[in-house]
């Protein structure tokens, strides 16, 4: 199974191993090619295509980017679904936006951005090496349980009381995801299957631990007692729900982006994702990288579990980690970024707004919040189609030019 086409929209055929958009096109074209997301490539007149023409060309490229087309296509199809079952889109969409951004809801949305971005890294890191991690739920739940158990049973001073559970949760997540690595490299079972198969028992184990050994006595609720004060993640100034988790995950994301773009490890991971055999030939320890990336992704999932548990309401509530569906919102966001890691925080923000607005839409317009899952599923399908279609068309053009 090749991760190539999904990682950066290219076929896994070696010639793209050195990064994105290295296809042999002339310099003029290259200047605006595929840089829509970070806005570079706008500055400076393009030789032979000045002023308005260049702006139109750029605008055309932005509009026709697979990500933009996918979101637009998904929204159109979702609107059709709404009309088919008699929901008024003119009521639903404004309610969705209000539910995410207005009336003091923005704080919840920012709070939901943190776990979604973390889960996006949990999926994106292995994907760069061509491995699919669909088991984020299990890694997150066990990470959260370990963090809660540690905070409840070990008395620690203030700073360490937060740090130790976070680290332990990350290690737990790494271990849970790491199980899939030898299965992939020694037995040849794809990680997409094993991560998912491990996830269900992992969630069940976390649920069991929270309901029985760690349960709060006497209330009958499936939750742990409130964690001691030393284990509370400090909230950011002026906020109730946004904690120190936000700067932490932002920092880690920046570190990953840097390592991916500039680091040796990042280069080796990208090379493996583009063409596994080519990378192996070039001296990359591809099997070790599968383990490193899966464990790295799992570590982020475990960390997210701890960030949720150590934040308000400062306890592990059974189902509270997996119910909001962070894992699959994040997967949709990463696939929407079509191989541009820099775009991931933005696609995560977009899809977080979509899913965080769901409950508000349900309350105000009476439209079930599951609508947001429909949008996400459609986005994934459409982006997969557009990524290939664009690539095939480009290859065909290249072949025509070469033949002429």
């Amino acid at each position, binding site marked *: *199974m*090749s991760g190539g*086409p*999904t990682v950066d929209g290219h076929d896994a055929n070696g010639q793209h191993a050195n990064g994105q958009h290295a296809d042999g096109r002339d310099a003029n074209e290259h200047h605006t090619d595929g840089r829509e997301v970070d806005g570079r490539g706008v500055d400076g007149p393009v030789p032979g295509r000045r002023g308005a023409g260049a702006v139109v060309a750029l605008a055309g490229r932005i509009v026709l980017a697979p990500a933009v087309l996918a979101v637009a296509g998904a929204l159109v199809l979702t609107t059709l*679904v709404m009309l088919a*079952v*008699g*929901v008024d889109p003119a009521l639903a969409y404004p309610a969705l936006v209000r539910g995410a951004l207005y009336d003091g809801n923005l704080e919840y949305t920012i709070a939901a951005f943190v776990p979604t971005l973390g889960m996006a890294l949990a999926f994106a890191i292995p994907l760069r090496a061509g491995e*699919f991690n*669909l088991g984020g739920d299990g890694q997150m739940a066990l990470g959260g349980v370990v963090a809660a158990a540690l905070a409840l049973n070990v008395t620690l001073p203030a700073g360490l009381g937060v740090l130790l559970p976070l680290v332990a949760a990350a290690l737990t997540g790494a271990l849970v995801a790491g199980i899939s690595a030898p*299965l992939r490299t*020694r*037995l*040849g*079972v794809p990680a*997409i*299957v*094993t991560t*998912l*198969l*491990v996830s*269900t*028992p992992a969630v*069940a*184990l976390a*649920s*069991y631990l929270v*309901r*029985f050994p760690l349960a709060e006595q006497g209330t009958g609720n499936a939750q742990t007692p409130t964690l001691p004060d030393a284990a509370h993640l400090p909230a950011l100034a002026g906020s109730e729900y946004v904690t120190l988790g936000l700067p932490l995950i932002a920092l880690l994301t920046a570190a990953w982006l840097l390592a991916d773009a500039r680091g040796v490890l990042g280069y080796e991971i990208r090379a493996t994702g583009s063409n596994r055999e080519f990378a192996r030939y070039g001296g990359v320890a591809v099997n070790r990288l599968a383990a490193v990336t899966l464990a790295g992704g799992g570590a982020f999932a475990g960390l997210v579990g701890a960030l949720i548990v150590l934040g308000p309401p400062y306890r592990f509530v059974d189902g509270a980690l997996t119910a909001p569906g962070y894992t*699959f919102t994040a*997967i*949709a966001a990463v*696939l929407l970024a079509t191989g541009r890691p820099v775009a991931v925080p933005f696609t995560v923000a977009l899809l977080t707004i979509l899913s965080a607005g769901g409950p508000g839409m349900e309350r105000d317009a009476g439209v*079930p919040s*599951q*609508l*947001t*899952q*429909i*949008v*996400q*599923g*459609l*986005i*994934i*399908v*459409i*982006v*997969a*189609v557009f*990524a*290939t*279609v664009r690539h*095939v068309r480009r290859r065909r053009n290249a072949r025509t030019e070469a033949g002429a």
Partner: protein
Amino acid sequence: MNIFEATFFAAVLTATAPVVLAALGGLLSSVSGVFNMALEGQLLWGAFTAVVFSYLTGSAWLGVLGGVLATVLYSAILSVSAVTFRADPVVVAVGMNLLALGLTAFLMRQVFGVGGTYTSPDLRGLPTLADLGLDVPVLGSQSPLVPVTLALVVAVALWLKRTRAGLRLRGIGQHADAAESLGLRVGVYRHGVVLAAGALCGLAGAQLALGNVTLFSEGMSAGRGWVAVVAVMLGGSRPYRVLLACLLFGAAEAFGFRLQGAGLPQQAADAAPYVITLLALVVAGAAGRRRQTVEAR
């Protein structure tokens, strides 16, 4: 706890039938060279649409038919994007599984006005064989779709092995370009097989929602489609081996229910089928590896 009694075997068959049907779809797709990981979503969609059509028509069999047709339509997403547009079938499948989860949960609230689980005395479930006057041991408590499932396993095995079309399908899976150069229309075969997998998943969903029980609940496929994917990995292109792998899963699920009855927590029952499936993968993978090493010498 006696596990060697008729009711246990009946429980195994009940748990196995939907997985076998979905796995047959996965097997056909994989033989043709299309990796079909969207079984989970199609199974869920089949279960939901079968319930909807049974509710609308008041007939369980029309429910089955509606479920099958609706799931064929749903599987066209995979066939069009992966076969026509050559999109990555794995990514498309991830999207389709999520889409099915969202669509069923959304439409259930719109159509039935409830979330979580829908059931109603008006909802017609499939009769058991005993209801139809065929009170044979073990099978008597099953829906007619269970013997149909077993027959389909035999049919698929014979079709792949003994017919011209089956041979051609295997050829396409082994070397699509070579098959194309012999004049076979690779795309047509692949479209047909992916849509057939949709029909089988629709049947699986109908058996799950109208045969095993008579209700629909959110996410009721509960990983069975993924177990079917694993069964195809374990069994390769041999339908009887795939059936065996599915029976292993069914036995684990039935055993899990027994454990729950014996006082173990529900979480153990939830986890049992997946742990067993994983162990089977590891054992089979290790055995395959050893065989390769021996052959290499």
